[in-house]
């Protein structure tokens, strides 16, 4: 995965991994996302910021296949992509860690890791032993303290559950990773761990969308921020070109600073 991804970064750096163009979706007359566009390059971390209800989660759920957009186009590797359900997104290498983690609480870590992509024996039955063995390997890398492979994930701590969700997202050679409020439920040590993981994945050439309503969570990790307000994109900026205060201004007032590229949602005064 490593070399392949780096190669991609070198040769296709000009083509974004993902480009979402003029995406709109409404629920019962409410424009949850209105003509939003954003893109993501290999090895890049893009922070998607905005208040609760700004439309960032909805936009990202369109990319992960949980919602189907009303209009707009998604390009993956420069090619037009059809993403009508979560299966399609996963086939394209788009993996998501949801804020709720989306784990089946009543089954164990291996069953969750492989949910929807189970390893089968040659008889077509579940190969639980193989799945558990693989899960042990992945979890050892990610969280060496993790030992409770037989317990339903309901009985695990918040951090352990988080590592199961992360393991599931990165185990299948993800190229595009979406993390929705990845540190919202974590303590400082675990947050630090997630930060390290993001650096490592970035070096592997994976593109990452970090979604948060809290600028402090993402500013130091992100290369670029895209700010949304009321369903529209206020603007995007490299984190080196703007200050935290300026980004706060974008989130709260929708005011685009000089260092940022304004979007359709920028206030015009």
């Amino acid at each position, binding site marked *: 995965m490593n070399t392949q991804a780096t190669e991609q970064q070198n040769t296709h750096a000009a083509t974004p991994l993902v480009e979402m163009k003029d995406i709109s979706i409404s629920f019962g007359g409410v424009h949850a996302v209105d003509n939003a566009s954003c893109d993501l390059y290999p090895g890049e971390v893009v922070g998607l910021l905005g208040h609760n209800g700004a439309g960032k989660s909805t936009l990202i759920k369109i990319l992960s296949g949980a919602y189907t957009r009303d209009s707009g186009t998604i390009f993956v590797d420069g090619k037009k992509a059809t993403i009508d359900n979560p299966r399609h997104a996963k086939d394209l290498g788009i993996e998501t860690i949801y804020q709720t983690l989306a784990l*089946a609480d009543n089954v164990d870590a291996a069953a969750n890791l492989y949910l929807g992509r189970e390893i089968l024996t040659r008889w077509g039955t579940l190969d639980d032993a193989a799945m558990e063995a693989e899960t042990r390997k992945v979890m050892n890398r990610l969280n060496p303290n993790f030992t409770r492979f037989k317990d339903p994930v309901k*009985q695990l701590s918040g951090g352990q559950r988080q590592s199961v969700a992360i393991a599931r997202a990165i185990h299948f050679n993800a190229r595009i990773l979406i993390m929705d409020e990845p540190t919202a439920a974590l303590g400082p040590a675990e947050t630090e761990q997630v930060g390290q993981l993001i650096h490592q994945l970035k070096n592997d050439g994976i593109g990452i969308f970090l979604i948060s309503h809290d600028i402090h969570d993402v500013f130091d990790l992100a290369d670029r921020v895209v700010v949304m307000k009321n369903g529209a994109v206020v603007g995007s900026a490299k984190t080196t070109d703007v200050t935290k205060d300026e980004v706060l201004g974008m989130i709260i007032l929708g005011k685009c600073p000089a260092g940022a590229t304004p979007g359709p949602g920028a206030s015009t005064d």
Partner: protein
Amino acid sequence: MSVEKKYTESALVRFLRATEVDTRLLGMIGALILIWLGFHLYGHFVNGYGAFLTPRNLWNLSVQTSSIAVMATGMVLVIVTRHIDLSVGSLLGFSAMIMGVMQVWILPKFLGLGHPMIWPITVVVGIAFGALIGAFQGVLIAYLNIPAFIVTLGGLLIWRGASYLVARGETIAPVDQTFALIGGGPYGTIGATGSWILGIIVCLVIVLLLFNGRRQRKKFGFTTRPMWAELLIGGVGSALVIGAVMVMNAYPWPKGIVKKYAAANNIEIPDGGIFISHGFAFPILIALAVGVAMTFLATRTRFGRYVFAIGGNPEAAELAGINTKKMTMLIFSLMGALTGIAAVIASARLKSATLALGQFDELYVIAAAVIGGTSFAGGIGTIYGAILGALVMQSLQSGMVLIGFDSAIQQMVVGCVLVIAVFLDNLYRRNSV
């Protein structure tokens, strides 16, 4: 959790950990033994005759449990996915009626009375019919978003009414003679030798499964059970199987049947009479086969994994790319097919299709699944639990008949047991998590 407990854990806990036996299962077997002993001793001391723990009663119990047990295995999957199916009793009646019409009114016209193809065609039609109606209800639930409670409550009324219309209110009898064997009775069994052969095969399978499981765990370097625990499980399992064979074989044919059989086969009956064993009856064999197949489906296949994942977190299952609507449809279709199988057993046992067949079965089936540990909150339940639950329900039922409780008391006792069982189950879960 395991680390903290290490120092205080008792011999019992260590024993349970080593054998990896489900404590729930032990609890249910304990309850069953209590019920059986209770009825037997009550009969012994109060009525002067303990009729419960006799080969005859246990054989009958096995036959009576079968139809409910078959449906309960499907109800587990329905309830695990947070649905309910109230229509199984009516659907059983309707399927039985369709099969009755098929083999009594329609097929003899084309094939001639007693044609050997009548029973297989009837059985296939009955099961397919159940599956089709189940799928139809499943479509309404999954794709039109009508709650399962409502769809199947409607079904409960509709299918009962429909079977009345089909038969114009008549009882359809007599069914095909071969078909009737599926319901048990002296001829509907595999006999003493057959039971021994089956018993030995099952013992071998138990050993093979234990051996295979151990090899699989070793291959991936997981911890294995200590050898004594493996031997104990294999030994107890085999002993239970052999015990069941001996009980079933200890119930002889009634004298009248033996006489008829002897006359038909020109056998002279010696002074002491001939002891011809029943052995396992076909209904219980069908129920056990369904139990094995459903356990396999629930634990070893993708389908089963998805059922439990949907029950645990429907949204997560959807986001993992599982087609939850299609799964719901399939689960209800499977429930319908199992109801069809139960209809075969029930109508073959009665040798007729009556209007009341299957009435209130939905309640017993749901009760069996729930007593067997299936949780209405979704995501939790086992097939073997539901089968044991069916056995508990039927034991209570026939035990009270044996000791002469009247039906009003019977209903009240069954109702109380259901509520208490779920209460105990809640306690158990709270303490184990």
